[in-house]
């Protein structure tokens, strides 16, 4: 969580992006100078299926207010099938977080191809807004990691 001078809540968003599609899509939104908030910090992974639920919990623990996972569109995975596994894993994980009463809008999966720079920027704008509305992550935070 970052706090600006104007005191507006600035959420911290961690975005896991697969190397082949979404990371390239993020690069493309840069090449096209499509703005999205600085709140979003991208971590590059080879494939969306590399993202362990533990990483997502870890991000929330350490102070992220939202976590978004981006991968190739189903059918376009560089590794044939990785994102299909991602889809099942994240559906179940998010459903479980929802079941435990964690706000649904803090987590998201989005398929962004290497050509969808505009979609990447729009998604990040939208997601940041949604998390901003929820306010700081309180339900799944580690008090020891809370910043002043």
């Amino acid at each position: 969580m970052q706090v600006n001078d104007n005191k507006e809540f600035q959420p911290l968003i961690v975005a896991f992006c697969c190397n082949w599609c979404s990371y390239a899509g993020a690069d493309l939104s840069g090449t096209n100078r499509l703005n999205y908030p600085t709140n979003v910090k991208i971590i590059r992974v080879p494939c969306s299926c590399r993202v362990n639920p533990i990483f997502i919990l870890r991000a929330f623990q350490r102070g992220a207010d939202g976590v978004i996972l981006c991968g190739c569109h189903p059918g376009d995975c560089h590794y044939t099938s990785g994102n299909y596994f991602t889809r099942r894993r994240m559906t179940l994980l998010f459903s479980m977080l929802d079941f435990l009463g964690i706000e649904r809008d803090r987590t998201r999966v989005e398929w962004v191809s290497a050509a969808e720079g505009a979609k990447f920027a729009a998604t990040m704008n939208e997601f940041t807004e949604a998390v901003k509305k929820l306010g700081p992550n309180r339900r799944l935070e580690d008090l020891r990691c809370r910043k002043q």
Partner: protein
Amino acid sequence: MQEAIISRAKQLLADGTVNRVIGWKRGEFAYDITPAIFESPEEIDADFVYDDFTSANVSKYLVKESRKEGKILAFLKTCDTYSLNQLTKEHRVDRDNIYVVGIPSDGKLDVEKIKAKGITGITGVERNGDILTVKTIYGDETMSVADAMSNKCLSCKSKKHVTYDELIGEDGEVTDTNRFDMVEKLENMTSQERYDFWRNELSKCIRCNACRNVCPACTCENCVFNNPDSGVENKAAADSFEENMFHIIRAFHVAGRCTDCGECSRVCPQNIPLHLLNRKFIKDINSLYGEYQAGADTTSKAPLNNYTFDDCEASIVHERGVE
């Protein structure tokens, strides 16, 4: 039933089919039935117990036992056979080294439920139809069997043994239960209500690890919670986050592998309804990816290791239920 089991165990030991038996013996109290290994007819005669308190699922012990020299005899209730099948599928047990005798179970009793009626000093029970006579040091008490039945048996999913070398008694059918009712009730609450519910439950967790240690799906050589490199290592929950994390990760690790044997909730000293987390996954898997019962067979692909091209998107979580 106990006599039949004991006599069959002695036969199989005598004819050399097996060289050990895994069964149960009494603990400190009459209702404290705990798994035990027997190597001779004498030991069996002395200690072997199979009664209304014999709930423990012994299949997990077979991970280690089946790797030892010689064949072991295991008496498995219906729910235990699912666990064994799942372990067989995951190559965790050597099925060839196990002689399975399927035994019937008409539901086991939960001593806590009896104690909750104010009955103490329990020395034994007798079931007569629906009536349960509880023998205590202060004399006999009666109550209904249903009131004393353990929760996991109240929502028994199957009376059918899915793996066995022989059966004692008749085999039953897969039953249709209301086991997802509570999950559904929670799903219909608001997010805040669910959060409050789980905070109330999980904050009771004392991280005794009983749920993990009894779980027949949790057989990892080295559990992630014991591994300093895993990023989630912790011995005792320091705060609410860690309470949540332990149970989320544990449920996720057994998702698609949990046979819903209910041991986790049975052994929880804090009475946290942990099975609800597993059932939530089972319910989601059934409704999103098609009916799947872990342990029903030894060949099918686990739902999380499988996919179809037209699986639902993760956004389905946003689209359904109460916010």
